[in-house]
Structures are given as C-alpha cells and as structure tokens.
C-alpha cells in the first residue's frame, strides 16, 4: 500500500487501520458497512462497526475535517449535547497512488433518532412540536456558550427520547464557529436560517407524504423562533423590583430551575438610593435536574427523565416516611429497591429498544394507566411485566437506528425505503 496515513485522535483505536482507507468511501464493500445514511447529504457518509462501537465516517476536505474535529472536541468539553469526535484521517491514496479525501470519524450516538425516522413511524400528532422544543433548547445552549451554528436544521440534529419530550444533539458543526460571545446579528441569522431549514424539511416530508396534512409547516418554523426567544429572554433577561421584594431573587432562580437550568452567577445591582434592585443571570448551566440526579444516584440521564425519576424518588421518600433522612441515603435505597429491579426485570433481548431511564419513565406511565383501568394500585413488578408484554415487545430497536442496509439504494420513485435495524 502506498498510503501514508495520519490519524489525528485523542485516543486512536488501532482497529481503525483495518478499514479499507485506500478505497473511496462511496465504493466501500458491504461487508465492512453497518448502514448507509438516508436522504441526500453533501458529503459521502457511511456507518461502520468497529470494536463494539458504531462509527460515522464522512469524506470531507482536509482543513475542514480538522476544523470540525476541533470544534466538536471543544463543544464536548463545554458539555454541549453534540456527537463525540473520534478522529481525522488524512494521507489516503488509492491503489494507483491517487489522493483520496480526508475523513472525519465520529461516534454514533446510541439510542438517537434522526427526525426522518421519527416521521416514518406512527406518530403522536405533536411530535413536530416536541422536536422543535428540543431544538430550541439546544440552540439556546449553543448560543449561551458562544457557538454560532451557521446551518441549523433538523437533519443536522439527532434526537433522543427524554421522558415525554426529546433532547436534541448537534451532529454537524461544519459551518460553525465558537466565539467569546455571539452578537445579536449572529443569533438572529442562526434563528432565521433554522426557521427556513425546518420549514423546508417539513415541506419535504409533506411532499413524501410522511407528514399529516393538518400540519402547518410555516407555523412550526415560527414556533421555533418563538420558543427560542422565550427561553433566551428567560435565561438572560433582567428583572427589576423594589428593594423590599427580596423573595424575587429566589423566585427568579427557581423559575430558571424549573426550565432545567442552574444559575452559576447572578448579577445584582441597585440604583443610587437603593430603592430598585436589578437582577440578571450572567452564567446559566443546563441540566438542573440531571445534575442533581447524578449527584444523588450516579445515574446519567436526560433532563426530563431526571425530573421524572426525582419525582418518583420524592414519592418513595414520602411513602416510606423518610422525608427527614439524608437525601443521599434515601436515593441509594430507592435506586436499589425501585429503579434497578424495574429495569432489570426487562428481558435482556428487549434492552436494545430503549434506554433504561426511558423504560422506567414509560413503566411509571404504564402503571398509571393500568391502575386506572383496574381501579386499584398496581404494584411496580406487576406493572413492569404488563409493560414488557403489551408495550415494549412491540417497539422497534432504537439503540442503533441508522439508515439503509448496505447494498440497498432507494429507487427514484421511492427516495427513502425502510430503516435498517442494526445489531451489534
């Protein structure tokens, strides 16, 4: 082989060398591929299985690859939900010594759902709205850390289930840039582009008859702008009150907590005679509930899943009369006697369908329904058994929901065929 490969990675996996880098990505043999992506991308992208992981490989110009790799690393360090970069590979040559494009390798986000997958399933009518809510939160979080995206869209985002909502992750940072702070011009451009792209993507789903005819594409695009602005104002806006109303400081912080954010720094100023107080959050961090649950139990879950689990923990403390015990101790007992037995009751072969915290959330919902139907309190073990048989068993595997199976290309009149469910 005439190649002189350079792998830039924080922790290079030697198994990467076994992949056929001397072949253009588009011609990689089916036996190394886990799946082909769906839709039309401006770059060639393939999924492969390597050392028990699924990796996404994208052919892209060398400087752009290094740039995107660095950006993704910085976003990860800033704790912004985004895909994890694995590395950049350059110096590829084919058998005739011709140069081949550099590639960017990222880790596939387990249990993530591309928006097209969500729309090809039977859907709750408000799915589009819930996706938009998740994207608005992601965009606000990115803007808070100074990231200008430059290409916000549903297809550049992956979604994970988060209790009854979704959590959004950034997938494509090619056009992005990290600044100390964004100007209003940059934020507005991102929002405007997001609106246009989302409406375009929904119109495309409508053209492919994957969207309910009732759905108003432009209305959903406008909803993103509205949700973003509400959240941005709540998180960064100032509040004024008379000096006696000091309770408003706590109320302000609690309001942000309910939105899922912790206040890292709050600026407080008074006017000259001290009658009016002005407060404005300077540093806010996402993950109020998930951080708290993590501290108490070590469980690392999405924000709304954490909210649900914490509520159940509170009910547990009340039901067992332990509101006055140490919170950590109670949490430990809840984990051991409630959470773990519930998720462990799910047969191993069904665990690829949903994440444990999502299963727990759905079991709680399910218990509520069956209890109501039976007009008695159904104990958790009984609810789990009924959930597994009546609900979970009929759900698709979502652990690695990728694109099309290798070797199958969608035809012209059917631009996208069914998803391929990968088993690792």
């Amino acid at each position, binding site marked *: 082989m005439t190649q002189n490969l350079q792998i830039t990675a924080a922790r290079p996996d030697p198994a990467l060398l076994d992949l056929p880098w001397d072949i253009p990505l588009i011609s990689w043999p089916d036996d190394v591929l886990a799946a082909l992506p769906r839709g*039309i991308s401006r770059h060639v992208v393939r999924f492969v299985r390597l050392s028990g992981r699924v990796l996404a490989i994208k052919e892209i*110009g060398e400087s752009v690859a290094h740039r995107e790799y660095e950006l993704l690393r910085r976003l990860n360090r800033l704790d912004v939900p985004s895909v994890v970069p694995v590395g950049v590979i350059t110096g590829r040559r084919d058998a005739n010594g011709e140069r081949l494009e550099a590639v960017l390798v990222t880790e596939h986000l387990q249990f993530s759902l591309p928006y097209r997958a969500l729309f090809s399933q039977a859907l709750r009518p408000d799915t589009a709205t819930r996706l938009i809510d998740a994207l608005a939160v992601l965009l606000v979080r990115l803007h808070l850390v100074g990231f200008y995206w430059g290409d916000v*869209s549903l297809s550049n985002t992956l979604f994970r289930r988060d209790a009854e909502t979704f959590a959004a992750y950034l997938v494509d940072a090619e056009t992005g840039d990290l600044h100390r*702070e964004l100007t209003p011009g940059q934020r507005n451009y991102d929002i405007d*582009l997001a609106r246009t792209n989302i409406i*375009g993507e929904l119109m*495309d789903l409508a053209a492919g008859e994957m969207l309910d005819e009732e759905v108003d594409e432009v209305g959903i695009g406008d909803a993103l702008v509205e949700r973003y602005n509400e959240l941005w104002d709540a998180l960064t806006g100032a509040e004024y009150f008379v000096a006696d109303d000091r309770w408003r400081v706590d109320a302000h912080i609690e309001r942000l907590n309910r939105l899922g954010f912790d206040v890292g720094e709050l600026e407080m100023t008074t006017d000259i005679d001290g009658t009016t107080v002005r407060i404005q959050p300077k540093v806010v961090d996402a993950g109020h509930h998930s951080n708290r649950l993590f501290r108490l139990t070590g469980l690392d879950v999405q924000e709304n899943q954490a909210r649900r689990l914490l509520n159940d923990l509170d009910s547990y403390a009340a039901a067992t009369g332990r509101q006055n015990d140490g919170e950590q101790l109670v949490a430990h007992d809840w984990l051991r006697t409630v959470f773990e037995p519930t998720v462990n009751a799910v047969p191993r072969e069904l665990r690829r369908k949903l994440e444990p915290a999502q299963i727990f959330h759905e079991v709680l919902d399910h218990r509520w329904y069956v209890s109501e139907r039976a007009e008695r309190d159904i104990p958790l073990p009984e609810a789990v058994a009924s959930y597994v048989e009546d609900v979970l068993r009929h759900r698709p595997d979502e652990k690695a929901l990728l694109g099309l199976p290798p070797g199958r290309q969608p035809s012209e009149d059917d631009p996208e065929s069914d998803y391929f469910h990968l088993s690792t």
Partner: protein
Amino acid sequence: MATVTFDKATRVYPGTERPAVDQLDLHIEDGEFLVLVGPSGCGKSTSLRMLAGLEDVNGGAILIGDRDVTDVQPKDRDIAMVFQNYALYPHMSVADNMGFALKIAGTPKAEIRQRVEEAAKILDLTEYLDRKPKALSGGQRQRVAMGRAIVRQPQVFLMDEPLSNLDAKLRVQTRTQIASLQRRLGVTTVYVTHDQTEALTMGDRIAVLSAGVLQQVGTPREMYDKPANVFVAGFIGSPAMNIGTFDVTDGRAQVGGASLALERAVADGITAADGGRVTLGFRPESLEVVSAGSEGAFDVDVTLVEELGSDAFVYGSLKNGGDLHAGDSNQVIVRIDPRDVPDKGDTISVTIRPEQTHAFSASTGERLG
C-alpha cells in the same frame, strides 16, 4: 444591484487590543466580483461577516448602495450567503428545491415559477426542474444551491470559502462556473478565499488583507505587476516571487556576486531608516539563464528540478551568500526552458530581465519607484 462600501469599518473583538479589521476602506462597484484574499487570521472572513451583519461594526460604517446597513439585521440586508447550506430535499422536485424560500416568504406561485425558470435557464437546469435531486450529478446539485440564492434576487452575493469542502477536481470546475455565472447575472459579489490562485482567476478586482489591514486593491494584473508592498509581492503569484534584502553602494545593489544598478527613482527613495539596504523582488519567470560571467549575472546552486511538461522550475540557493527566497520557502525559484534542464548539484547563472525587478523599502516594505 448595488454598490458596497466599507467606510473605515472596524471590528475589535472584546478582550483584544488589535482590531481584527482595522479601518477598512473599500468601494465595490455595482456588478463587480471582488475577492478578499489573505492568509488565515488576516480579517477577510470577518470583513465579509461584517457586511453580512454577523459581526458587530465597532467603528465606521457599511453601505449597500446608498443605504447605511451598519445596524441592520442580517435578514433585512437583501444579501444572500451562497453555499453555506445546500442540503437538498429528496422528495421535492428541483424546482421546489430552488423556490421553497420564496414560498415561505409568501411569493405568489406564478412569480415563483417564473423566477425559478429564469434561474434554471442560466444554470442549465431547465430539463431537470420536475425531477428529484437524486437524478442530478454533484455539479448540478451545486448549481441548484446557487439557484436558491439567485431566485431570491438579492442585491449582493456573499461567498465565504465556498469551494473549501469540494475535492480538487470539482473545485476547479466550480470555480469557473461561479465566475462565468456571476458575469452573466451581473450581481455584485464579495468572495472570500485564502487561495491566491482562486483570487487571481476569479476576481474582477482583488483586495489583499494582512493582520486586519487592507494592503492593496486592484485588478489581478495590477496586483501581479505592481505589488504595493513586500507582503503583496510575496503573497500573490505561484510559485512565489523571490525576495531578498541587499546592501546598496553607490546606487547599486549587491546580489550574490552581481552588482545591479538601481533605477534612479528607487535609489532616491532609500532613506536613512533603510540603513543602506534595499529589498528586491523578482518572479521566477523574470529570471533568465545566461552563460557564466555575463553582465549582471549571479549564480544559483541547483538543489531540485521540477519538470511539469510545459514548464520547469529550478529550486536552489543564491551562491556567495545573501538571503534570497521565494514565499515561505528558503529557496530561490527560477523558471527554465523545459527542454534544457540542469542537474541537481549544478550551478546556473541567471540575470533579471529588464524592468522586471520590484524594489521595496528595507524598513517599511513599501514599493519604491
């Protein structure tokens, strides 16, 4: 259509002292294709983003036509960023892919169709309008993206390194397409690149920036033939110009073993600050191989010969000392007759063709004479 004016436009990032763009004065004519070029960090992208409304302007103003847009939101500036995003929608026809932004804006259907058809004609996409994007080649998909911007009929197109993520072949192809398309459309265009070849081949005029400061603006020919300073001289041209700083005695520069008479205007331009030295530059093609000992000749030790078929270049070092090198390399480059190439290790004698020496102040780097 509109002119674009940067009027002492300045951008200072919070927490930094040196402006990223320092009092940029630049007037772009209606319909002109202007390329902003310079090395990484020179301020070219920042300048473009200031025009787009993506960067605050901390001093001066930016005008599109007669309208001061300094504080106008990006979407209200009537500009289009091209190629930033060209995801194509698989279920929509090529026509819908091009016109969907107009549909969102509430443009009447008949008008959308008309604008899309006009754009498709210019882009050679007419026969594909009712097909799905899957049927298109890579280059045609690029043109659909361009079509999206065209149908909006903006006053100015902005392009920020649009070719950087294309492979080499498609890059050259698309370069030509963009340039000819821009000329047909006649829409004022500001294009950013770090690649001086791209700049020379595409722009009506080029503006070279370095460290946030505009160095020179002019036609590709002017930039090449009459660089305003050492930076532009070294940046424009491939292979790069040979540049060195030499002692001057009695109006003659001592280059290797040769003593070269300076033009009167150059000699008169040397000041005390220059310390009796002058910076000279000459392009690889301005050197001529002559027999040893010829009048005004200096010697170059050959370290490498690069044969490119129609062209050949010698890479070497100046004999008898002296710091003379092309661009970032530490070598002298000489274009030679591809049918008469020396061997590695040989020494060749060269002279500079008449009137092809560029002279710059040794202290300020500004052009002399």
